[in-house]
């Protein structure tokens, strides 16, 4: 990547496409159409939020990117990559921390590495590195039940980072947390992205969260979901201290709320 464009931005046409979803339709076995005409190009370095009402297919889109589900029609392609299997390039964070209660924090973070055949000894450095990234290096021997909700989520993020993914997929990861914790994790996530240089796709139903975090906010229609429009957010990377109270942030929230309410009105009409 050229030095001048170290921070890829929607305006920046030279950023390469990491994953592209083209004209995706997803129909479930029970006949429900979750996605229809879904198009999205995720560029390297993006922080894309998928924003939409409950049940609009946000999570389904994320699962398609991860390869956990196959699209009914359409394609998920990785233009820049020769590999067939992209799972080692993906980190996935669920809404719940989804930790193994019987294993301590270090062993939880070890799981993806272990499944790749790394012994605990060989994985030790990577585990410690991941835990340091989320500030939990002193909790390696703790069990999940001993941690607060925010700390469990940090472990979950550390686990997703242990494979050094190029693409981090997050499915409403902070929805169950209190606001104070959520704000702190929001800032930590932005810092992490700057440090790791990974691309993030973040599913949320919070206008404010998406406006705070994202470089691109993709607003989805109610089911069957498709991207209605995109709003341009801030550059990736840490936010200024007063960003949450800035006029720029307020304007962005207003803009996104406006688009979202137009969507729901359209459906009601």
């Amino acid at each position: 990547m050229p030095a001048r464009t170290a921070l890829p931005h929607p305006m920046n046409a030279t950023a390469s496409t990491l994953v592209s979803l083209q004209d995706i339709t997803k129909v479930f076995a029970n006949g429900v159409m979750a996605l229809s005409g879904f198009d999205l190009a995720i560029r390297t370095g993006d922080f894309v939020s998928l924003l939409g009402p409950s049940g609009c297919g946000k999570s389904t889109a994320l699962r398609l990117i991860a390869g956990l589900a196959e699209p009914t029609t359409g394609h998920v392609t990785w233009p820049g990559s020769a590999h067939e299997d992209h799972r080692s390039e993906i980190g996935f964070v669920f809404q719940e921390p989804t930790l193994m209660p019987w294993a301590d924090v270090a062993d939880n973070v070890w799981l993806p590495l272990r499944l790749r055949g790394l012994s605990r000894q060989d994985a030790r450095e990577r585990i410690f590195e991941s835990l340091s990234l989320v500030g939990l290096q002193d909790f390696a021997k703790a069990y999940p039940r001993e941690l607060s909700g925010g700390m469990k989520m940090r472990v979950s993020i550390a686990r997703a980072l242990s494979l050094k993914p190029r693409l981090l997929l997050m499915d409403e990861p902070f929805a169950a947390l209190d606001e104070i914790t959520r704000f702190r994790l929001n800032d930590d996530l932005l810092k992490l992205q700057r440090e790791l240089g990974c691309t993030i796709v973040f599913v949320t139903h919070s206008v404010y969260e998406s406006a705070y975090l994202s470089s691109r906010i993709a607003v989805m229609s109610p089911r069957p979901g498709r991207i209605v429009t995109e709003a341009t957010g801030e550059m990736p990377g840490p936010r200024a201290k007063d960003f949450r109270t800035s006029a720029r942030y307020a304007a962005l929230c207003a803009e996104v709320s406006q688009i979202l309410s137009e969507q729901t009105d359209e459906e009601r009409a």
Partner: protein
Amino acid sequence: MAAPSNPLKVVLPLAVFAAAIGLWEIAVRLHGIPPYILPAPSLIGTTMVADWPLLQASLLTTLKTTLLGLALAVLGGVCLAIVLSLSRIVEYSLYPFAIVLQVTPVIAIAPLLLIYMPQDVAVLTCAWLVAFFPVLSNTMLGLQSVDRNLMELFALYGAPASRKPLARFRSRLKALWYLRRPAALPAFLAGLRIAGGLSLIGAVVAEMAAGSAGAGSGLAYRIIESQYRLNIPRLFAALVLLALTGIALYLLLASISHRLLRRWHESALTQEK
């Protein structure tokens, strides 16, 4: 075990027990109840000592049957549960029969077993049968109770790239070892505790049904025999030994369960105040 949180929890039941024994002793002596109707606790104690060689042999027989039956039940129950969880086809074809056998009071087939098998084998089979199903159904429940998201995570990081049957089977084995096995542990241990008690019951019932004498006869046979001979003190002594066996078995299994789960499972955690 965790540090005893409250000494009263131990002291109070012991005091109640001692009081009950004391009252029993006093009542028998005051009313001059003959020992062939109700022996005093002291007489039961002396009988226990006097008849110890006989009772000890019976205790060992019953204990052996119970533990062997339990061990075989664990082996069979866990193996079958694993096979059922690995293959849908096997599960669909076999599990209904497992349920039918489970809801049938298998104790009632003890007389039948005695027709087909030598006595000691029949008794063992009976103990095994009643202990088998709690282990099977609890282990199956446990194996199926893995967090769905964890399985997804496993699919993302661990599933094989190829779709060949062998590779898929190996990935299932991996999931079994990494996720299902630890997730199933609490349910399995709950089943084990139930099975321990049931195995003893199975052994006792089968011994009673068998009812024939000999060197290899267990405590339940001693009870029947003492009843016929109106040797009520010995009957009580055998009963006490059976009760102690049950208690010891329960404590043993409970402490195993606690040891294995104390770091992470809700059931083994002591509430912090």
